Protein backbone atom coordinates (compact mmCIF):
# COMPACT_ATOMS: atom_id res chain seq x y z
CA UNK A 1 0.00 0.00 0.00
CA UNK A 2 1.46 3.33 -1.00
CA UNK A 3 1.66 6.15 1.57
CA UNK A 4 -1.20 8.16 0.04
CA UNK A 5 -3.54 5.19 0.13
CA UNK A 6 -2.46 4.37 3.68
CA UNK A 7 -3.35 7.94 4.65
CA UNK A 8 -6.82 7.63 3.14
CA UNK A 9 -7.38 4.34 4.98
CA UNK A 10 -6.27 5.96 8.26
CA UNK A 11 -8.71 8.84 7.79
CA UNK A 12 -11.52 6.37 7.05
CA UNK A 13 -10.76 4.46 10.23
CA UNK A 14 -10.83 7.65 12.29
CA UNK A 15 -14.16 8.66 10.75
CA UNK A 16 -15.70 5.25 11.46
CA UNK A 17 -14.51 5.40 15.08
CA UNK A 18 -15.89 8.93 15.45
CA UNK A 19 -19.23 7.80 14.05
CA UNK A 20 -19.32 4.95 16.51
CA UNK A 21 -18.63 7.25 19.45
CA UNK A 22 -21.33 9.62 18.21
CA UNK A 23 -23.86 6.80 17.90
CA UNK A 24 -23.06 5.59 21.40
CA UNK A 25 -23.42 9.09 22.84
CA UNK A 26 -26.53 10.87 24.12
CA UNK A 27 -29.72 10.58 22.09
CA UNK A 28 -30.17 12.98 19.17
CA UNK A 29 -33.26 14.13 21.01
CA UNK A 30 -31.03 15.85 23.52
CA UNK A 31 -30.00 19.26 22.29
CA UNK A 32 -26.36 20.01 21.92
CA UNK A 33 -25.04 22.40 24.57
CA UNK A 34 -25.23 25.96 23.45
CA UNK A 35 -22.59 28.60 23.23
CA UNK A 36 -22.03 31.04 26.06
CA UNK A 37 -24.42 33.94 26.09
CA UNK A 38 -23.40 36.89 24.00
CA UNK A 39 -23.72 40.50 24.88
CA UNK A 40 -26.98 42.35 24.71
CA UNK A 41 -27.53 45.73 23.22
CA UNK A 42 -27.88 48.04 26.18
CA UNK A 43 -31.42 48.19 27.39
CA UNK A 44 -32.98 51.58 27.18
CA UNK A 45 -33.79 52.97 30.60
CA UNK A 46 -37.44 53.51 31.35
CA UNK A 47 -38.50 57.14 31.30
CA UNK A 48 -38.92 58.16 34.92
CA UNK A 49 -42.56 59.11 34.58
CA UNK A 50 -43.60 55.92 32.85
CA UNK A 51 -45.78 53.47 34.71
CA UNK A 52 -43.85 50.25 34.52
CA UNK A 53 -46.10 47.24 34.38
CA UNK A 54 -45.46 44.35 36.65
CA UNK A 55 -44.43 41.14 34.96
CA UNK A 56 -47.38 39.04 33.90
CA UNK A 57 -47.50 36.14 36.30
CA UNK A 58 -49.06 33.91 33.67
CA UNK A 59 -45.81 33.94 31.71
CA UNK A 60 -43.48 33.73 34.68
CA UNK A 61 -41.79 30.49 35.55
CA UNK A 62 -41.89 29.45 39.19
CA UNK A 63 -38.70 28.10 40.72
CA UNK A 64 -38.21 24.42 40.29
CA UNK A 65 -40.57 23.90 37.35
CA UNK A 66 -38.63 25.36 34.48
CA UNK A 67 -37.97 22.64 31.93
CA UNK A 68 -35.43 24.81 30.19
CA UNK A 69 -33.14 24.88 33.18
CA UNK A 70 -31.21 21.87 32.09
CA UNK A 71 -31.10 22.96 28.50
CA UNK A 72 -29.91 26.51 28.50
CA UNK A 73 -28.74 27.34 31.99
CA UNK A 74 -31.28 29.64 33.59
CA UNK A 75 -35.00 29.45 33.03
CA UNK A 76 -36.74 31.57 30.46
CA UNK A 77 -38.89 34.19 32.19
CA UNK A 78 -37.80 32.82 35.56
CA UNK A 79 -38.68 34.71 38.73
CA UNK A 80 -35.70 36.80 39.69
CA UNK A 81 -34.36 36.71 36.15
CA UNK A 82 -34.00 39.60 33.75
CA UNK A 83 -35.38 40.23 30.29
CA UNK A 84 -31.82 40.48 29.04
CA UNK A 85 -31.15 36.98 30.31
CA UNK A 86 -34.40 35.78 28.75
CA UNK A 87 -33.38 37.06 25.34
CA UNK A 88 -29.98 35.52 25.76
CA UNK A 89 -31.66 32.18 26.42
CA UNK A 90 -33.80 32.48 23.31
CA UNK A 91 -30.72 33.31 21.30
CA UNK A 92 -29.02 30.25 22.75
CA UNK A 93 -32.01 28.19 21.67
CA UNK A 94 -31.51 29.42 18.13
CA UNK A 95 -27.84 28.56 18.35
CA UNK A 96 -28.81 25.08 19.49
CA UNK A 97 -31.21 24.87 16.57
CA UNK A 98 -28.43 25.75 14.14
CA UNK A 99 -26.18 23.15 15.71
CA UNK A 100 -28.82 20.48 15.28
CA UNK A 101 -29.78 21.57 11.77
CA UNK A 102 -26.43 22.52 10.29
CA UNK A 103 -26.53 24.56 7.13
CA UNK A 104 -30.25 25.23 7.36
CA UNK A 105 -30.15 28.48 9.27
CA UNK A 106 -32.63 29.60 11.88
CA UNK A 107 -36.30 28.72 11.84
CA UNK A 108 -38.10 31.55 10.04
CA UNK A 109 -41.48 33.19 9.79
CA UNK A 110 -43.94 34.46 12.32
CA UNK A 111 -43.43 33.98 16.04
CA UNK A 112 -45.92 31.08 15.87
CA UNK A 113 -43.91 29.35 13.15
CA UNK A 114 -40.61 29.82 14.95
CA UNK A 115 -42.12 28.63 18.23
CA UNK A 116 -43.67 25.63 16.48
CA UNK A 117 -40.26 24.74 15.08
CA UNK A 118 -38.61 25.10 18.49
CA UNK A 119 -41.27 22.96 20.15
CA UNK A 120 -40.84 20.00 17.86
CA UNK A 121 -42.33 20.78 14.46
CA UNK A 122 -39.11 19.97 12.67
CA UNK A 123 -37.50 17.13 10.78
CA UNK A 124 -35.92 15.65 13.92
CA UNK A 125 -39.00 16.29 16.11
CA UNK A 126 -36.55 18.00 18.37
CA UNK A 127 -38.20 19.86 21.27
CA UNK A 128 -35.87 22.63 22.27
CA UNK A 129 -38.74 24.17 24.22
CA UNK A 130 -41.56 22.09 25.69
CA UNK A 131 -44.84 23.01 24.03
CA UNK A 132 -46.42 23.63 27.46
CA UNK A 133 -43.74 26.02 28.63
CA UNK A 134 -45.29 28.98 30.46
CA UNK A 135 -43.55 31.38 28.09
CA UNK A 136 -45.76 30.15 25.23
CA UNK A 137 -49.17 31.78 25.02
CA UNK A 138 -52.48 30.28 23.96
CA UNK A 139 -51.88 31.08 20.29
CA UNK A 140 -48.50 29.39 20.29
CA UNK A 141 -46.25 32.44 20.51
CA UNK A 142 -43.12 32.65 22.61
CA UNK A 143 -43.58 35.59 24.96
CA UNK A 144 -41.47 37.83 27.11
CA UNK A 145 -41.93 38.08 30.87
CA UNK A 146 -44.67 40.68 30.42
CA UNK A 147 -46.65 38.34 28.19
CA UNK A 148 -45.99 40.08 24.86
CA UNK A 149 -44.96 37.91 21.93
CA UNK A 150 -41.26 38.26 21.16
CA UNK A 151 -40.54 39.99 17.86
CA UNK A 152 -38.15 38.01 15.67
CA UNK A 153 -36.43 40.13 13.05
CA UNK A 154 -34.79 37.88 10.48
CA UNK A 155 -31.75 39.69 9.20
CA UNK A 156 -30.19 36.66 7.58
CA UNK A 157 -30.48 32.93 7.85
CA UNK A 158 -28.20 32.90 10.87
CA UNK A 159 -28.70 36.37 12.33
CA UNK A 160 -31.89 36.97 14.27
CA UNK A 161 -32.63 40.16 16.15
CA UNK A 162 -34.95 39.39 19.09
CA UNK A 163 -37.06 42.12 20.63
CA UNK A 164 -39.03 42.24 23.85
CA UNK A 165 -41.75 44.88 23.86
CA UNK A 166 -40.79 45.68 27.44
CA UNK A 167 -42.99 46.68 30.34
CA UNK A 168 -45.32 48.84 28.22
CA UNK A 169 -46.09 45.75 26.11
CA UNK A 170 -45.90 47.78 22.91
CA UNK A 171 -43.13 46.88 20.47
CA UNK A 172 -40.98 49.58 18.91
CA UNK A 173 -41.19 51.92 21.87
CA UNK A 174 -38.45 53.29 24.07
CA UNK A 175 -38.57 50.58 26.70
CA UNK A 176 -38.01 47.72 24.24
CA UNK A 177 -35.08 45.44 24.91
CA UNK A 178 -33.34 44.09 21.84
CA UNK A 179 -30.95 41.24 21.37
CA UNK A 180 -28.57 42.12 18.56
CA UNK A 181 -26.79 39.07 17.17
CA UNK A 182 -23.05 39.12 17.05
CA UNK A 183 -22.63 42.28 19.08
CA UNK A 184 -19.27 42.38 20.83
Amino acid sequence: MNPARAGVVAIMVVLVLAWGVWRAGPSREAPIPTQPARNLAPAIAHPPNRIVAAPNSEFIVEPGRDPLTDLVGEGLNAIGGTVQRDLSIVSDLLDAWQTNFPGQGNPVGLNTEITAALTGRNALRLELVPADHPAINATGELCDRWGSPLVFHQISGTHMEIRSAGPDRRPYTDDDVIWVPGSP
Partner: protein
Amino acid sequence: MNFKNHLPDLGRRQFIRSCCAAVGSTGLLSAMAQLRLMGAVAGDSAGNDYKALVCLFLQGGNDANNLIIPYDTAGYANYAAARTTLALPRDQLLPINPLTTDGRSYGIHGALGPLQELFGSGQLALLANVGTLVVPTTRAQYEARSVPLPPQLFSHNDQQVQWQSSVPDQPFSTGWGGRLADLTNAFNENPSLSMSISLDGQNSFQVGSSVSQFAVNRTGVVNLTGINGDAGQVRLETLKSVLGQENENLFQTAFGGLTDSAIDTSALLGEALENGPEIATVFPEGRLGQQLGMIARLISIAPQFGLKRQVFFARLGGWDLHDTQIDAHASLLAEIAAGMKSFYGATVELGCEHSVTTFSASDFGRTFNTNGDGSDHGWGSHHMVMGGAVRGGDIYGTMPVLEINGPDDTGRGRWIPTTSVDEYAATLARWFGVGEADLPLVLPNLGRFAQPDLGFML
Protein backbone atom coordinates in the same frame (compact mmCIF):
# COMPACT_ATOMS: atom_id res chain seq x y z
CA MET B 1 -15.69 -6.99 -3.32
CA ASN B 2 -13.03 -5.24 -5.27
CA PHE B 3 -13.87 -1.54 -4.94
CA LYS B 4 -11.43 -0.75 -7.68
CA ASN B 5 -13.91 -2.21 -10.14
CA HIS B 6 -16.51 0.32 -9.05
CA LEU B 7 -14.54 3.35 -8.03
CA PRO B 8 -12.06 4.45 -10.61
CA ASP B 9 -8.72 5.27 -9.10
CA LEU B 10 -8.61 8.92 -10.03
CA GLY B 11 -5.23 10.46 -9.88
CA ARG B 12 -4.97 14.12 -8.91
CA ARG B 13 -4.46 15.26 -12.49
CA GLN B 14 -7.23 13.06 -13.75
CA PHE B 15 -9.57 14.45 -11.07
CA ILE B 16 -8.73 18.02 -12.05
CA ARG B 17 -9.26 17.12 -15.72
CA SER B 18 -12.68 15.67 -14.87
CA CYS B 19 -13.68 18.76 -12.93
CA CYS B 20 -12.52 21.01 -15.74
CA ALA B 21 -14.54 18.97 -18.22
CA ALA B 22 -17.63 19.35 -16.06
CA VAL B 23 -17.14 23.08 -15.69
CA GLY B 24 -16.23 23.35 -19.33
CA SER B 25 -19.46 21.73 -20.47
CA THR B 26 -21.44 24.47 -18.70
CA GLY B 27 -19.23 27.08 -20.28
CA LEU B 28 -19.60 25.36 -23.62
CA LEU B 29 -23.38 25.66 -23.49
CA SER B 30 -23.05 29.34 -22.71
CA ALA B 31 -20.47 29.79 -25.47
CA MET B 32 -22.76 28.07 -27.98
CA ALA B 33 -25.58 30.36 -26.95
CA GLN B 34 -23.29 33.36 -27.37
CA LEU B 35 -22.39 32.15 -30.86
CA ARG B 36 -26.08 31.89 -31.66
CA LEU B 37 -26.55 35.45 -30.44
CA MET B 38 -23.66 36.65 -32.57
CA GLY B 39 -25.32 34.99 -35.53
CA ALA B 40 -28.53 36.75 -34.65
CA VAL B 41 -26.72 40.08 -34.47
CA ALA B 42 -25.15 39.50 -37.89
CA GLY B 43 -28.38 38.39 -39.49
CA ASP B 44 -30.85 40.69 -37.84
CA SER B 45 -30.44 44.42 -37.82
CA ALA B 46 -32.75 44.58 -34.82
CA GLY B 47 -29.99 42.89 -32.83
CA ASN B 48 -27.87 45.96 -33.33
CA ASP B 49 -30.26 48.15 -31.42
CA TYR B 50 -29.08 49.45 -28.09
CA LYS B 51 -30.85 48.10 -25.02
CA ALA B 52 -30.35 48.75 -21.33
CA LEU B 53 -31.95 47.11 -18.35
CA VAL B 54 -32.01 49.01 -15.07
CA CYS B 55 -32.65 47.14 -11.83
CA LEU B 56 -34.03 49.37 -9.12
CA PHE B 57 -33.66 47.47 -5.87
CA LEU B 58 -35.77 48.63 -2.93
CA GLN B 59 -33.67 47.27 -0.12
CA GLY B 60 -35.40 46.21 3.06
CA GLY B 61 -38.74 45.00 1.68
CA ASN B 62 -41.26 47.40 0.17
CA ASP B 63 -44.78 47.40 1.59
CA ALA B 64 -46.48 46.98 -1.78
CA ASN B 65 -49.83 46.58 -0.04
CA ASN B 66 -49.73 50.37 -0.05
CA LEU B 67 -48.46 50.56 -3.61
CA ILE B 68 -51.57 49.11 -5.28
CA ILE B 69 -54.68 49.55 -3.14
CA PRO B 70 -58.26 48.38 -3.70
CA TYR B 71 -60.28 51.41 -4.71
CA ASP B 72 -63.83 50.10 -5.06
CA THR B 73 -65.98 50.62 -2.00
CA ALA B 74 -66.08 47.03 -0.80
CA GLY B 75 -62.43 46.34 -1.59
CA TYR B 76 -61.29 49.49 0.13
CA ALA B 77 -63.40 48.74 3.19
CA ASN B 78 -61.78 45.31 3.56
CA TYR B 79 -58.35 46.84 3.05
CA ALA B 80 -58.95 49.53 5.66
CA ALA B 81 -60.32 47.04 8.17
CA ALA B 82 -57.33 44.74 7.81
CA ARG B 83 -54.60 47.37 7.66
CA THR B 84 -55.98 49.63 10.41
CA THR B 85 -53.19 52.08 11.23
CA LEU B 86 -51.45 51.42 7.91
CA ALA B 87 -54.52 52.11 5.78
CA LEU B 88 -54.23 55.13 3.53
CA PRO B 89 -57.27 57.41 3.34
CA ARG B 90 -59.24 56.59 0.22
CA ASP B 91 -59.46 60.21 -0.85
CA GLN B 92 -55.66 60.39 -0.93
CA LEU B 93 -55.28 57.48 -3.35
CA LEU B 94 -54.62 58.03 -7.02
CA PRO B 95 -57.06 55.97 -9.09
CA ILE B 96 -55.73 54.03 -12.06
CA ASN B 97 -57.59 52.48 -14.98
CA PRO B 98 -55.80 49.32 -16.11
CA LEU B 99 -56.40 48.18 -19.68
CA THR B 100 -57.65 44.84 -18.45
CA THR B 101 -59.72 44.31 -15.36
CA ASP B 102 -60.15 41.58 -12.80
CA GLY B 103 -63.47 43.09 -11.81
CA ARG B 104 -62.02 45.26 -9.09
CA SER B 105 -60.74 48.80 -9.23
CA TYR B 106 -57.43 49.99 -7.85
CA GLY B 107 -55.60 53.10 -6.86
CA ILE B 108 -51.95 53.75 -6.13
CA HIS B 109 -50.27 55.54 -3.24
CA GLY B 110 -50.82 59.28 -3.22
CA ALA B 111 -47.07 59.93 -3.34
CA LEU B 112 -46.83 58.31 -6.76
CA GLY B 113 -48.30 61.11 -8.84
CA PRO B 114 -45.51 61.06 -11.46
CA LEU B 115 -45.95 57.31 -11.89
CA GLN B 116 -49.72 57.65 -12.20
CA GLU B 117 -49.01 59.84 -15.25
CA LEU B 118 -46.65 57.27 -16.75
CA PHE B 119 -49.15 54.49 -16.09
CA GLY B 120 -51.85 56.52 -17.78
CA SER B 121 -49.72 57.28 -20.81
CA GLY B 122 -48.63 53.66 -21.18
CA GLN B 123 -44.98 53.76 -20.12
CA LEU B 124 -45.44 52.05 -16.77
CA ALA B 125 -46.82 48.62 -15.99
CA LEU B 126 -47.53 47.10 -12.62
CA LEU B 127 -46.77 43.49 -11.74
CA ALA B 128 -48.91 41.87 -9.10
CA ASN B 129 -47.64 39.65 -6.32
CA VAL B 130 -44.19 38.60 -7.57
CA GLY B 131 -41.81 36.69 -5.35
CA THR B 132 -39.26 33.96 -4.89
CA LEU B 133 -40.52 30.45 -5.52
CA VAL B 134 -38.86 27.09 -5.99
CA VAL B 135 -42.02 25.70 -7.59
CA PRO B 136 -45.58 27.03 -7.84
CA THR B 137 -46.97 26.83 -4.32
CA THR B 138 -50.42 26.81 -2.75
CA ARG B 139 -51.36 27.61 0.81
CA ALA B 140 -52.04 23.94 1.56
CA GLN B 141 -48.62 23.01 0.21
CA TYR B 142 -47.00 25.77 2.25
CA GLU B 143 -48.66 24.62 5.45
CA ALA B 144 -47.89 20.96 4.87
CA ARG B 145 -44.38 21.78 3.68
CA SER B 146 -45.12 19.36 0.86
CA VAL B 147 -43.20 21.34 -1.77
CA PRO B 148 -39.76 22.90 -1.43
CA LEU B 149 -39.91 26.50 -0.28
CA PRO B 150 -37.25 29.13 -0.81
CA PRO B 151 -34.83 28.68 2.08
CA GLN B 152 -34.93 31.33 4.78
CA LEU B 153 -38.10 32.96 3.59
CA PHE B 154 -38.61 36.29 5.39
CA SER B 155 -34.88 36.79 6.01
CA HIS B 156 -33.51 39.98 4.46
CA ASN B 157 -30.15 38.80 3.21
CA ASP B 158 -31.36 35.49 1.88
CA GLN B 159 -34.33 36.95 0.06
CA GLN B 160 -32.24 39.74 -1.43
CA VAL B 161 -29.84 37.18 -2.82
CA GLN B 162 -32.63 34.90 -4.04
CA TRP B 163 -34.41 37.76 -5.80
CA GLN B 164 -31.13 38.68 -7.46
CA SER B 165 -30.09 35.14 -8.38
CA SER B 166 -33.55 33.70 -9.14
CA VAL B 167 -32.19 30.30 -8.12
CA PRO B 168 -33.49 30.04 -4.57
CA ASP B 169 -32.92 26.32 -4.23
CA GLN B 170 -29.18 26.44 -4.88
CA PRO B 171 -26.28 28.09 -3.06
CA PHE B 172 -25.55 31.45 -4.64
CA SER B 173 -23.07 31.47 -7.50
CA THR B 174 -24.27 34.07 -10.01
CA GLY B 175 -27.04 36.63 -10.33
CA TRP B 176 -29.55 36.57 -13.15
CA GLY B 177 -28.33 39.97 -14.32
CA GLY B 178 -24.80 38.57 -14.44
CA ARG B 179 -25.88 35.52 -16.40
CA LEU B 180 -27.82 37.78 -18.74
CA ALA B 181 -24.68 39.85 -19.26
CA ASP B 182 -22.52 36.77 -19.82
CA LEU B 183 -24.87 35.70 -22.57
CA THR B 184 -25.60 39.01 -24.25
CA ASN B 185 -22.13 40.49 -24.11
CA ALA B 186 -21.91 39.04 -27.61
CA PHE B 187 -23.97 42.02 -28.76
CA ASN B 188 -21.23 44.41 -27.68
CA GLU B 189 -18.41 45.20 -30.08
CA ASN B 190 -15.05 44.96 -28.34
CA PRO B 191 -16.36 46.85 -25.35
CA SER B 192 -13.81 48.84 -23.42
CA LEU B 193 -16.15 49.07 -20.45
CA SER B 194 -18.06 46.34 -18.66
CA MET B 195 -21.70 46.15 -19.71
CA SER B 196 -22.63 45.61 -16.03
CA ILE B 197 -22.44 48.79 -14.01
CA SER B 198 -23.50 49.20 -10.40
CA LEU B 199 -24.36 52.59 -8.98
CA ASP B 200 -24.42 51.32 -5.42
CA GLY B 201 -21.50 49.01 -4.87
CA GLN B 202 -21.37 45.26 -4.92
CA ASN B 203 -24.53 43.30 -5.49
CA SER B 204 -25.51 39.72 -6.22
CA PHE B 205 -27.64 40.58 -9.25
CA GLN B 206 -24.70 41.42 -11.52
CA VAL B 207 -22.34 38.63 -10.47
CA GLY B 208 -21.55 36.76 -13.66
CA SER B 209 -19.09 34.15 -14.80
CA SER B 210 -17.34 36.15 -17.48
CA VAL B 211 -18.63 39.73 -17.24
CA SER B 212 -17.50 41.59 -14.11
CA GLN B 213 -19.56 44.35 -12.58
CA PHE B 214 -17.99 47.78 -12.62
CA ALA B 215 -18.93 50.14 -9.83
CA VAL B 216 -19.29 53.88 -10.12
CA ASN B 217 -20.89 56.18 -7.60
CA ARG B 218 -23.67 58.70 -7.88
CA THR B 219 -21.33 61.49 -8.93
CA GLY B 220 -19.15 59.57 -11.33
CA VAL B 221 -16.22 57.22 -11.36
CA VAL B 222 -14.45 56.15 -8.21
CA ASN B 223 -11.02 57.70 -8.48
CA LEU B 224 -7.85 57.01 -6.59
CA THR B 225 -6.76 59.89 -4.43
CA GLY B 226 -3.23 61.27 -4.35
CA ILE B 227 -2.47 60.72 -8.02
CA ASN B 228 -2.56 64.33 -9.15
CA GLY B 229 0.55 66.31 -9.97
CA ASP B 230 4.00 64.98 -10.76
CA ALA B 231 4.41 63.18 -7.45
CA GLY B 232 0.98 61.68 -7.84
CA GLN B 233 1.81 60.37 -11.28
CA VAL B 234 4.91 58.68 -9.91
CA ARG B 235 2.75 57.06 -7.24
CA LEU B 236 0.28 55.90 -9.85
CA GLU B 237 2.95 54.42 -12.10
CA THR B 238 4.54 52.66 -9.14
CA LEU B 239 1.20 51.22 -8.10
CA LYS B 240 0.44 50.01 -11.61
CA SER B 241 3.87 48.46 -11.86
CA VAL B 242 3.24 46.52 -8.65
CA LEU B 243 -0.22 45.47 -9.78
CA GLY B 244 1.13 44.30 -13.13
CA GLN B 245 3.69 41.93 -11.65
CA GLU B 246 3.27 38.23 -12.19
CA ASN B 247 2.67 36.41 -8.95
CA GLU B 248 2.97 32.78 -8.07
CA ASN B 249 -0.37 33.15 -6.36
CA LEU B 250 -3.06 33.17 -9.05
CA PHE B 251 -5.44 35.18 -6.88
CA GLN B 252 -2.84 37.90 -6.42
CA THR B 253 -2.25 38.02 -10.16
CA ALA B 254 -5.96 38.17 -10.87
CA PHE B 255 -6.47 40.87 -8.24
CA GLY B 256 -3.60 42.90 -9.69
CA GLY B 257 -4.96 42.60 -13.21
CA LEU B 258 -8.50 43.51 -12.19
CA THR B 259 -7.41 46.50 -10.13
CA ASP B 260 -5.09 47.73 -12.86
CA SER B 261 -7.88 47.41 -15.39
CA ALA B 262 -10.32 49.23 -13.08
CA ILE B 263 -7.89 52.16 -12.72
CA ASP B 264 -7.56 52.46 -16.50
CA THR B 265 -11.28 52.11 -17.07
CA SER B 266 -12.07 54.71 -14.43
CA ALA B 267 -9.76 57.20 -16.12
CA LEU B 268 -11.30 56.49 -19.52
CA LEU B 269 -14.84 56.63 -18.23
CA GLY B 270 -14.20 59.79 -16.22
CA GLU B 271 -12.96 61.54 -19.34
CA ALA B 272 -15.91 60.31 -21.40
CA LEU B 273 -18.38 61.51 -18.78
CA GLU B 274 -16.72 64.89 -18.66
CA ASN B 275 -17.01 65.27 -22.41
CA GLY B 276 -20.37 63.56 -22.75
CA PRO B 277 -23.57 65.30 -23.81
CA GLU B 278 -25.28 67.57 -21.35
CA ILE B 279 -28.60 66.22 -20.13
CA ALA B 280 -31.13 68.97 -19.54
CA THR B 281 -33.56 66.81 -17.58
CA VAL B 282 -33.38 67.74 -13.93
CA PHE B 283 -33.07 64.87 -11.48
CA PRO B 284 -34.25 65.20 -7.90
CA GLU B 285 -31.69 65.54 -5.18
CA GLY B 286 -31.32 62.44 -3.09
CA ARG B 287 -29.77 59.03 -3.30
CA LEU B 288 -31.93 57.55 -6.01
CA GLY B 289 -32.31 60.59 -8.24
CA GLN B 290 -28.54 60.96 -8.42
CA GLN B 291 -28.02 57.28 -9.18
CA LEU B 292 -30.55 57.41 -12.01
CA GLY B 293 -29.07 60.66 -13.27
CA MET B 294 -25.66 59.02 -13.50
CA ILE B 295 -27.17 56.03 -15.33
CA ALA B 296 -28.65 58.43 -17.89
CA ARG B 297 -25.21 59.98 -18.41
CA LEU B 298 -23.62 56.53 -18.77
CA ILE B 299 -26.22 55.56 -21.35
CA SER B 300 -25.48 58.73 -23.27
CA ILE B 301 -21.85 57.72 -23.75
CA ALA B 302 -22.42 53.99 -24.33
CA PRO B 303 -21.65 54.18 -28.08
CA GLN B 304 -18.14 55.44 -27.29
CA PHE B 305 -17.47 52.16 -25.52
CA GLY B 306 -18.96 49.87 -28.16
CA LEU B 307 -21.85 48.94 -25.87
CA LYS B 308 -25.15 47.79 -27.31
CA ARG B 309 -26.32 46.02 -24.20
CA GLN B 310 -25.99 47.36 -20.67
CA VAL B 311 -27.26 46.19 -17.29
CA PHE B 312 -27.40 48.74 -14.47
CA PHE B 313 -28.05 48.33 -10.77
CA ALA B 314 -29.39 51.11 -8.55
CA ARG B 315 -30.48 50.69 -4.96
CA LEU B 316 -32.44 52.62 -2.37
CA GLY B 317 -32.51 51.42 1.24
CA GLY B 318 -34.76 52.24 4.15
CA TRP B 319 -37.82 50.13 3.30
CA ASP B 320 -37.69 47.86 6.35
CA LEU B 321 -40.37 49.84 8.13
CA HIS B 322 -41.38 47.87 11.19
CA ASP B 323 -42.24 51.16 12.87
CA THR B 324 -43.49 54.66 11.96
CA GLN B 325 -44.18 53.41 8.49
CA ILE B 326 -46.77 55.77 7.08
CA ASP B 327 -44.66 58.91 6.72
CA ALA B 328 -41.37 57.19 5.94
CA HIS B 329 -42.96 55.01 3.27
CA ALA B 330 -44.62 57.99 1.62
CA SER B 331 -41.30 59.77 1.53
CA LEU B 332 -39.53 56.79 -0.07
CA LEU B 333 -42.26 56.31 -2.65
CA ALA B 334 -42.13 60.00 -3.53
CA GLU B 335 -38.39 59.71 -4.05
CA ILE B 336 -38.87 56.68 -6.29
CA ALA B 337 -41.62 58.34 -8.31
CA ALA B 338 -39.72 61.56 -8.87
CA GLY B 339 -36.51 59.73 -9.76
CA MET B 340 -38.20 57.33 -12.17
CA LYS B 341 -40.14 60.10 -13.90
CA SER B 342 -36.96 62.12 -14.40
CA PHE B 343 -35.12 59.09 -15.65
CA TYR B 344 -37.81 58.34 -18.18
CA GLY B 345 -37.69 61.99 -19.25
CA ALA B 346 -33.92 61.76 -19.71
CA THR B 347 -34.26 58.70 -21.94
CA VAL B 348 -36.80 60.61 -24.04
CA GLU B 349 -34.33 63.48 -24.25
CA LEU B 350 -31.62 61.06 -25.37
CA GLY B 351 -34.00 59.44 -27.84
CA CYS B 352 -33.61 56.01 -26.29
CA GLU B 353 -36.81 55.61 -24.28
CA HIS B 354 -37.75 52.50 -26.26
CA SER B 355 -34.35 50.97 -25.52
CA VAL B 356 -34.22 51.41 -21.76
CA THR B 357 -36.36 49.42 -19.35
CA THR B 358 -36.37 50.00 -15.61
CA PHE B 359 -37.81 47.44 -13.24
CA SER B 360 -38.17 47.27 -9.49
CA ALA B 361 -37.19 44.46 -7.14
CA SER B 362 -37.16 44.13 -3.36
CA ASP B 363 -36.41 41.59 -0.62
CA PHE B 364 -40.09 40.74 -0.13
CA GLY B 365 -43.46 42.32 0.46
CA ARG B 366 -44.74 43.00 3.94
CA THR B 367 -47.51 41.77 6.19
CA PHE B 368 -50.98 43.03 5.32
CA ASN B 369 -51.85 43.60 8.94
CA THR B 370 -49.87 45.90 11.15
CA ASN B 371 -47.67 45.26 14.15
CA GLY B 372 -48.93 48.52 15.61
CA ASP B 373 -47.22 51.23 13.65
CA GLY B 374 -45.47 49.31 10.92
CA SER B 375 -45.43 46.03 9.04
CA ASP B 376 -43.26 42.95 9.16
CA HIS B 377 -41.59 40.74 6.59
CA GLY B 378 -43.87 39.26 3.97
CA TRP B 379 -43.35 37.37 0.73
CA GLY B 380 -45.05 38.24 -2.59
CA SER B 381 -44.98 41.89 -3.59
CA HIS B 382 -46.10 44.20 -6.39
CA HIS B 383 -43.57 45.75 -8.75
CA MET B 384 -43.14 48.37 -11.45
CA VAL B 385 -41.68 48.23 -14.95
CA MET B 386 -41.07 51.45 -16.86
CA GLY B 387 -39.93 52.29 -20.38
CA GLY B 388 -40.99 53.01 -23.94
CA ALA B 389 -40.95 49.30 -24.76
CA VAL B 390 -43.27 48.45 -21.88
CA ARG B 391 -46.91 47.61 -22.56
CA GLY B 392 -47.88 49.99 -19.84
CA GLY B 393 -51.15 51.05 -18.35
CA ASP B 394 -51.97 47.60 -17.09
CA ILE B 395 -51.54 45.29 -14.11
CA TYR B 396 -49.94 41.96 -15.05
CA GLY B 397 -50.15 38.77 -13.07
CA THR B 398 -52.76 38.01 -10.45
CA MET B 399 -53.56 40.15 -7.47
CA PRO B 400 -53.70 38.07 -4.29
CA VAL B 401 -56.95 37.71 -2.38
CA LEU B 402 -56.35 40.43 0.19
CA GLU B 403 -57.75 38.50 3.08
CA ILE B 404 -55.98 37.45 6.28
CA ASN B 405 -56.12 33.65 6.40
CA GLY B 406 -57.44 33.70 2.84
CA PRO B 407 -56.28 31.36 0.09
CA ASP B 408 -53.09 33.33 -0.67
CA ASP B 409 -52.09 34.02 2.93
CA THR B 410 -49.42 32.27 4.95
CA GLY B 411 -50.27 34.27 8.06
CA ARG B 412 -50.80 37.99 8.74
CA GLY B 413 -51.16 38.68 5.03
CA ARG B 414 -47.87 37.33 3.77
CA TRP B 415 -48.97 36.54 0.23
CA ILE B 416 -47.80 33.45 -1.58
CA PRO B 417 -46.43 34.81 -4.86
CA THR B 418 -48.68 34.20 -7.84
CA THR B 419 -45.86 35.09 -10.24
CA SER B 420 -42.29 33.89 -9.76
CA VAL B 421 -39.19 36.04 -10.06
CA ASP B 422 -38.20 33.65 -12.87
CA GLU B 423 -41.23 34.62 -14.97
CA TYR B 424 -40.70 38.32 -14.28
CA ALA B 425 -37.00 38.10 -15.18
CA ALA B 426 -37.59 35.92 -18.25
CA THR B 427 -39.96 38.49 -19.74
CA LEU B 428 -37.25 41.12 -19.35
CA ALA B 429 -34.48 38.81 -20.61
CA ARG B 430 -36.47 37.94 -23.71
CA TRP B 431 -36.90 41.64 -24.50
CA PHE B 432 -33.17 42.09 -23.92
CA GLY B 433 -32.44 39.69 -26.78
CA VAL B 434 -32.26 36.23 -25.24
CA GLY B 435 -33.94 33.63 -27.41
CA GLU B 436 -36.40 31.15 -25.97
CA ALA B 437 -33.91 28.28 -26.24
CA ASP B 438 -31.36 30.22 -24.22
CA LEU B 439 -33.64 31.46 -21.45
CA PRO B 440 -32.79 28.50 -19.17
CA LEU B 441 -29.17 29.63 -19.21
CA VAL B 442 -30.27 32.83 -17.53
CA LEU B 443 -33.13 31.34 -15.50
CA PRO B 444 -32.47 27.66 -14.87
CA ASN B 445 -35.74 27.09 -12.95
CA LEU B 446 -37.97 28.79 -15.50
CA GLY B 447 -39.36 25.50 -16.82
CA ARG B 448 -41.14 24.93 -13.51
CA PHE B 449 -43.42 27.89 -14.08
CA ALA B 450 -46.26 28.47 -16.48
CA GLN B 451 -45.51 31.83 -18.02
CA PRO B 452 -42.05 32.48 -19.44
CA ASP B 453 -43.50 35.62 -21.02
CA LEU B 454 -45.86 37.70 -18.92
CA GLY B 455 -46.55 39.95 -21.87
CA PHE B 456 -45.63 43.30 -20.39
CA MET B 457 -42.88 44.00 -22.93
CA LEU B 458 -43.49 44.93 -26.57
